[in-house]
């Protein structure tokens, strides 16, 4: 997109006005530095954001985060809110990997003391946390059991002994979306889910052990149990084949729904249905069930990671090897929330696709200990680079529907990354830098090379400068597990 069409609001905020295209229902607001904006303009992200503004029932703006990149239909790194209940819900604006998210666990183990054991730890994590193409999970559930997973999410894991009560409290939505409707999930989706629950999968999903390198907000870090120099673990994955199938099923069935409701869209991947229609209600119920599956999935992987930590460290460290949950966030989701828009309180469905909920201090949805500091936000960087812990702010509530960025954001195609990077060399380079790597696929590793992504530090500086998140801690990777 030609950047001359944009209106500069500030050094970090830009607008594509409604006058840009006749079918736009709301403007687009972009949070980016000039440098990031120029990078973004090289792919189709901004055109996709303009297409997203045609969804019926939108309020405010379509928001574009600094880590945005081209997706399919809706840009990755986009946020859009549609008024409840007459506005639409769009499966493609939430994504195929429903409730893809990140969980952060903190340990009391100093990295320097654990260093000799890092290779062992990486091997144990790879052993206990199933990963890779077609991987099957740490448990196999019956048909009946899966119904409980879809309704109860992480609470199912708690009942089965795979979770601690604090894990549940420190999970977005307490690890369970109400009004999930397993009966709206196809048998095919359930079949895929039964075999894959408790597995990492492949692609950009990972488990990473980090050292907490730098603290920016002592009070917030201390509240979260983050201590400089100690180890922490991130788990990044979603709803696996079950979620992919739910989205596929509803993108397919909504192809005819848009015709029934007379909705015209510039891209068939944006198909949608009014939330108060039978089609919209069915998708919301199925999407919530898939989200609950993803909460349970990350919980099972956390259970497996705890086993690995126990085996690696329990003999040498009397205390501190137990992993405590900092928070679990989702970055592909549609949720009914209430936000103040142009001075009025409005109930909306916030579509976050590659964007993280970032509720500010005082939000009642947060666990009590986090209400004074704001919601923890986990921003994984690209492989081998830093990751960040942030908190939501009053500004994120006021300006971005309580949302912020979700990662570094790609800049290079997978095909180009594979041409430019050899997986084996990349692994050697990472190992040389003291990062233990366990990966099932070398081409897969190459696709996720750091040069294929933006600089996560620049992305975080941007959301921090805009005010839609505040920095708490910077993490450095010391072990990476990928499928």
């Amino acid at each position, binding site marked *: 997109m030609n950047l001359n069409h944009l209106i500069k609001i500030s050094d970090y905020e830009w607008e594509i006005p409604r006058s840009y295209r006749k079918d736009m229902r709301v403007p687009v607001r972009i949070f980016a530095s000039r440098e990031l904006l120029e990078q973004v303009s090289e792919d189709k992200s901004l055109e996709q954001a303009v297409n997203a503004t045609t969804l019926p029932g939108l309020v405010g703006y379509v928001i574009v985060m600094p880590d945005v990149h081209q997706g399919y*239909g809706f840009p990755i790194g986009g946020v859009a809110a549609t008024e409840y209940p007459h506005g639409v819900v769009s499966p493609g604006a939430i994504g*195929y990997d429903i409730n893809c998210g990140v969980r952060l666990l903190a340990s009391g183990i100093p990295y320097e003391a654990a260093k000799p054991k890092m290779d062992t730890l990486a091997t144990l994590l790879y052993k206990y946390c199933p990963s890779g193409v*077609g991987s099957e999970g740490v448990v196999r559930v019956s048909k009946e059991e899966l119904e409980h997973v879809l309704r109860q999410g992480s609470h199912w894991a708690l009942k089965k002994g795979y979770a601690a009560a604090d894990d549940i409290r420190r999970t977005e939505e307490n690890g369970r979306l109400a009004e999930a409707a397993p009966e709206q999930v196809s048998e*095919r989706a359930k079949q895929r889910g039964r075999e894959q629950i408790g597995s990492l999968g492949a692609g950009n999903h990972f488990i990473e052990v980090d050292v907490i390198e730098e603290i920016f907000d002592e009070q917030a870090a201390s509240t979260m149990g983050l201590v400089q120099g100690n180890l922490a673990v991130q788990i990044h994955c979603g709803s696996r084949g079950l979620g992919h199938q739910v989205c596929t099923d509803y*993108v397919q069935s909504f192809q005819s729904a848009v015709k029934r409701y007379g909705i015209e869209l510039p891209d068939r*991947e944006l198909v949608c249905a009014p939330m108060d229609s039978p089609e919209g209600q069915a998708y919301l119920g199925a999407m919530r069930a898939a989200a609950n599956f993803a909460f349970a999935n990350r919980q099972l992987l956390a259970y497996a990671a705890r086993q690995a930590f126990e085996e690696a460290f329990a003999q040498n460290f009397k205390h501190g090897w137990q992993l405590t949950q900092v928070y679990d966030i989702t970055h592909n989701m549609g949720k009914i929330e209430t936000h103040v828009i142009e001075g009025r309180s409005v109930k909306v469905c916030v579509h976050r696709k590659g964007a993280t909920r970032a509720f500010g201090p005082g939000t009642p949805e947060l666990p009590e200990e986090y209400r004074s500091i704001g919601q923890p936000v986990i921003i994984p960087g690209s492989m081998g680079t830093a990751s960040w812990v942030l908190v939501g702010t009053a500004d994120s509530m006021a300006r971005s529907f309580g949302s912020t960025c979700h990662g570094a954001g790609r800049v290079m195609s997978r095909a180009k990354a594979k041409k430019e990077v050899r997986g084996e060399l990349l692994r050697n380079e990472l190992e040389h830098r003291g990062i233990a790597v366990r990966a099932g696929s070398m081409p897969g590793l190459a696709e996720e090379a750091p040069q294929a992504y933006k600089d996560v530090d620049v992305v975080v500086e941007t959301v921090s400068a805009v005010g839609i998140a505040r920095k708490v801690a910077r993490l450095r990777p010391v072990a990476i597990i990928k499928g």
Partner: protein
Amino acid sequence: MPFREVPHTADWALQVWASDLPGLFREAALGMNALAGMQLSEGPRLSRSFHTESPDAESLLVVFLTELIYYAEQEHLGFDQFAIRFEETPNVMRFQVEMSGAPLERINKVIKAVTYHNLAIRSSEDGLNVTIVFDV
């Protein structure tokens, strides 16, 4: 080969061309297999059939390729030979395929989904072409 990968920042895009619709669907399936790094075992061959209907050919293409993803993921089967038939009435297109394949020897990549993003089968002097974006 009558397909090639085209650049896409985050996902995969595949451009496919053929002289007719059955050929386009066949090449799309083979192109998707190639993108996923699929290799079939040399064991006994097996066959499956599949039929569906839809108002347009693009929807049929999405459903067909989605079916192949499902077979690969759930039954660890891949297919490399396709006998495809279409039947067209004023309001609906019917699609039927007899597929021949084998158990997977290996597959390198997970394809999450076949998307409708800018999906349009176009005619040209050389026949038909389409660009398909996959979520990976």
